[in-house]
């Protein structure tokens, strides 16, 4: 088994185990090549959950902040080592497709149809998983997403932080 299949199987097994689902194991052949639709779908699902409490109440303003964060993520990714980019691409492709068919209670439901608290619960299950690969997915996504959101000066109002200006 090569590393790629190992990662995917690990995530799948972990998801199945942590979600208590009795689904069969599929063959995992997800591409390491970027798919911006998959990435967008996953980020659109996870960002509002991770950023719950940080995003503005106003839906229009929140949507603008989410778009800005997604753009920041796609701008940042190419600076990562190719190895790490491929792992993230795999994760996005996986979450957008196969894994999204897993419901928390074993129902077939897409990631985007989970409630915000169910999405957070999913992430927290990865954090507490006995599988290092799921823990890595949790920490990798968390750092990437929080870094991108709080990197934007437009999102600093509640922090009382401003960058100095010299020129």
């Amino acid at each position, binding site marked *: 088994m090569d590393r790629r299949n190992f990662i995917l199987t690990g995530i799948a097994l972990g998801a199945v185990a942590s979600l208590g689902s009795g689904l069969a194991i599929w063959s995992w052949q997800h591409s390491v090549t970027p798919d911006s639709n998959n990435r967008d779908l996953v980020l659109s699902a996870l960002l509002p959950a991770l950023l719950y409490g940080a995003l503005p109440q106003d839906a229009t303003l929140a949507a603008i902040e989410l778009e800005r964060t997604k753009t920041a993520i796609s701008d940042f990714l190419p600076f990562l080592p190719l190895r790490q980019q491929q792992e993230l691409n795999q994760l996005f492709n996986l979450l957008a497709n196969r894994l999204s068919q897993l419901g928390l209670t074993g129902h077939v439901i897409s990631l985007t149809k989970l409630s915000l608290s169910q999405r957070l619960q999913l992430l927290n299950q990865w954090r507490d998983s006995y599988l290092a690969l799921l823990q890595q997915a949790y920490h990798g996504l968390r750092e990437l997403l929080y870094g991108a959101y*709080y990197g934007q000066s437009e999102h600093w109002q509640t922090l009382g932080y401003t960058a100095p200006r010299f020129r």
Partner: protein
Amino acid sequence: MNNTHLDASQFTQDQQFDTDIVIIGSGAGGGIAAEQLARAGFNILLLEEGAYYSRDDFVMQERWAYPNLYQEGAARKTRDQAIGILQGRTVGGSTTVNWTTSIRTPQPTLDYWHSEFGLNFTGDNDLTPYFSQAEKRLNIHQWPVAPNANNAKLQQGCEALGWQYTVISRNVNGCANLGYCGMGCPINAKQSMLASTIPAAVALGARLISRISVRRLHWQGDSITALEAVPVDQHFQPRSDISIRIKAKHYIVAAGAIGSPALLLRSKVPDPSGRLGKHTYLHPTVISGALFDENINGHSGAPQSIYSDQFVWPQQSDTAGFKLEVPPLHPVLMATKLIGTGEAHAALMQQFNQLQVTIALLRDGFHPQSQGGTVQLDSAQQPLLDYPISDYLWQGMRNALLAMAQLQFAAGAKQVLPIHHDATLYSSWAEAKAAIQQLPMQKLRQTVVSAHVMGGCNMSADATKGVVDQNGRHHQLQNLSVFDGSILPTSLGANPQLTIYALVWRNCQRLISMFKY
């Protein structure tokens, strides 16, 4: 583009260069070497994988600084992703983005090197004159300004508990006490290599090539014959469409303690000691947050002005020592390190300005259970550091979390938050103490970071115990030197820049006198 600086990403065809000395890497080692050797009259070619950004280019925002000035966008991780590594990748290397703390090599570290690696830095080999010269060259002085509140809390905690502390010496000249050292000094106050030795070397005729990645040293018998490099793209990924070949009389590898071993591994240079890329040290660091009633504003003011060595050299030899410092607090650094998700995370971020943060840097490499990490190459031939954390280090980290919580409460903290994914805010020292003693010390639950990478090409008097000799000369290849933090045989128990400056300054003088005879 001009005659003294070439941007390799602008090359449109293959290139060839000849020079006396080529220096690979422009950080603390390469920067000092460039000036010393240019001053001695040699033709110097200084190569840097990062870009040539300077004062006017720097943007005081992490979203610009991290991707543009740091290795792997400041998201570099060890193989199992358990340790995050901050390391510069720009002209001036980590000196362009470090927090300016300048400390001479601790005597117990030098003593350990003497006994374990036969390295004698006494008598004629005394480093003291080189420390003095580097301090003079880079204007290293004890910081005369009152510490910012983040550092002041460290000092107050030490005072309350009767713990040792020291006011830090910094390599700055005309520092405006801004707090943005990690994003590149916008006023050239920091005496980084970018602002000091590199312009001096260039004025003496050295040529700088930026955005170039050296892929391989070619060697035959006991000599390097040439090096092969490629430009990097706009995201600093090595390209394959253009090849650059450089021939020199002497080759100095100064690509940092991950980059230098990686280059030598790619080049498959002789490694009879088996230590190439091994014994890489990190000063593995754990973090403790504390909420105060008053504003701390940890983003403002000199990032590091106080440290405590209360615990760095413990009496019991089976306990890992640690140094206490503080980091600058900026939104991305904090948001990615603070624990939790959703509302809990947002609530912590909203108390950003009331947050004081203390860090504990473990002194690794001095114990059988602390033999460091290993630099490996991935399928793209890029470096990857495997650094397993032993029980000895985990125990040291737990001791460090305890000490930091005790210190923060002694300094008046309302609540303390050890940065561990099973921790929560604790409201008293007793509560924190009981909880920390129960925290599972495991990777990916306990957050671990590093800003100091050392070792991997360690020096030793005996060729069977190291990659280079005491002068940084490769034990097997006669025209190869390694002049950077990778030659350190252990970690230091102190921030490394001044040690590297002094060692490389000394090694350059040895090299110059060798060339003269």
